[in-house]
């Protein structure tokens, strides 16, 4: 039976991030979530797996906190999950992530299709799918906004900057999807209940024999701040407007 893999990532919800006065980033009160577009990838994998008569499997690489993602992911129609747990996941760069995922995928059999989101909501680096293609020697199609399975061939529409491009690729392949590709279903009660019973395979980075040292040296996160004048014009609306026009003129933008 063919396997369709949905790669997903457990990220910190950016809405919960707090920026301190010294611009350091406080994520201590932040809740985790499955990265937004990964839900589209999971939905796509469930749909294609059904069309292929295959099995959709979730694959994720994360630290111990990412365990919380498994029930959520499994409630979305996946039959199984593979969780590669490693504390180094938090500091992994694109190269390490792809190496780990590729090593895990190699251990699975009959993989027909690997689906990633175009990018994760925290880093939005968009490296995973293309790198996997290189590492696994599989064809890759990115920026997919529409997909159609025709036998063992995928007909895909890509939304690029200036054009819509339609390509074809024979399975096995790797694709990365844009959120336009589908509307993820909201899990119902039975789906949520079933999630807890689905099998989860757990591996570590060491099990897979991957070097988890990032090649990209990252500095600590800093809140993004713009230095702007922050002048609030006072007075009645008419006065405020007068001041604004004067300011625009003074700044030379009129």
């Amino acid at each position, binding site marked *: 039976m063919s396997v369709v893999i949905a790669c997903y990532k457990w990220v910190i919800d950016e809405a919960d991030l707090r920026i301190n006065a010294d611009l350091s980033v406080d994520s201590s009160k932040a809740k985790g979530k499955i990265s937004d577009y990964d839900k589209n990838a999971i939905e796509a994998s469930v749909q294609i797996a059904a069309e292929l008569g295959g099995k959709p499997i979730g694959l994720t690489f994360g630290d111990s906190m990412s365990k919380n993602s498994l029930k959520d992911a499994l409630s979305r129609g996946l039959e199984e999950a593979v969780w590669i747990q490693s504390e180094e996941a938090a500091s992994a760069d694109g*190269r390490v992530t792809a190496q780990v995922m590729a090593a895990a995928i190699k251990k699975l059999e009959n993989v027909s299709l690997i689906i990633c989101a175009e990018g994760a909501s925290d880093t939005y680096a968009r490296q995973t799918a*293309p*790198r996997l293609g290189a590492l696994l020697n599989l064809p890759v199609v990115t920026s997919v906004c529409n997909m159609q399975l025709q036998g063992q061939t995928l007909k895909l529409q890509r939304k690029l900057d*200036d054009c819509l491009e339609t390509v074809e*690729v024979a399975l096995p392949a790797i694709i990365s999807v844009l959120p336009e590709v589908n509307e993820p279903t909201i899990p119902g009660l039975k789906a949520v209940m079933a999630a807890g019973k689905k099998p989860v395979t757990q591996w570590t980075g060491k099990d897979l024999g991957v070097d988890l040292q990032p090649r990209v040296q990252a500095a600590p996160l800093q809140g993004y701040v713009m230095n702007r004048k922050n002048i609030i014009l006072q007075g009645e609306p008419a006065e*405020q407007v007068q001041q604004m026009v004067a300011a625009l003129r003074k*700044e030379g933008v009129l």
Partner: protein
Amino acid sequence: MAGIYIYSDKANIAAELVTLARQAGKTAVLLAFDQDQADTLTQCGADQVCLLQGDSPLPENYAQAVADLLTQEGADLLAVGATARGRDLAARVAGYLDCGMASDVSSLSYQDGAWQCERMLYGGAVVQGQILMGLCVVTVPAGKFEAASGNCDITALTVGADTRVSLVEQTPIVKTGADLTNAERVVCVGMGLDKKEDLSMIQELANCLSAEIGCTRGVAEERHWLPVEQYIGISGAVIRPKLYLCLGVSGQVQHVVGVRDAKLIVAVDINEKAPIFRSADYGIVGDMYEVVPLLVQALKNA
């Protein structure tokens, strides 16, 4: 030759990345995958244009060839313009080279034998400094460097291309809105706008300012009051006008990041606690339905 290898499916970004190479004191080689592109690139001030000719019309399919070339030539860096195509190709090459990669850098420079860059995370709320050493790949958005110019020659190579993905057809996306990226003045409207008909008031203001009109994501993608090409933000248009005047825009990070390089940011919003005021040079806390007509009047009289 060693040095910095550059690719972009947009010639203007390629020209900008040549300047990057010059600032780093390195040779600049531009990559092309078809003759037309190669010809255009000879004007971009590089040391050489390298034309890779193979069996696929899709640049991404040349990743292995590019990786082999970089290794062979002892290249220092692959710099790719951050477009959808560019990111795809760049990450594939990074995969073949098994090297580090920094995507969509907001700044990039060469210091002490390493590439130092900054990236935005979490929708633009957070900045991270990164350092890459040795042969690596970066993708760079438009507008980070001045475009270089000057002539050079083309060297052509025949290479193998990945033909597993075949092109069926390409349809250009017809942009119905204005080109915001080149506008000097932009008036942006946010979710504070009550009804679609009120856009006429915004248009009048824009006309007085000789400005183009933009909007926030919700106005385009949820309300469909303006075409999606006109929404400004991290996943929409990123612009650098002289004047950015926004009305009824709350100022969420994902939007503000799209105008962070604007020379002057001016905001009008009814909510004094709106985050936009922290990102603005000048702000008026007020009802835009009151302020805009007054502003139009004042500008006409000016």
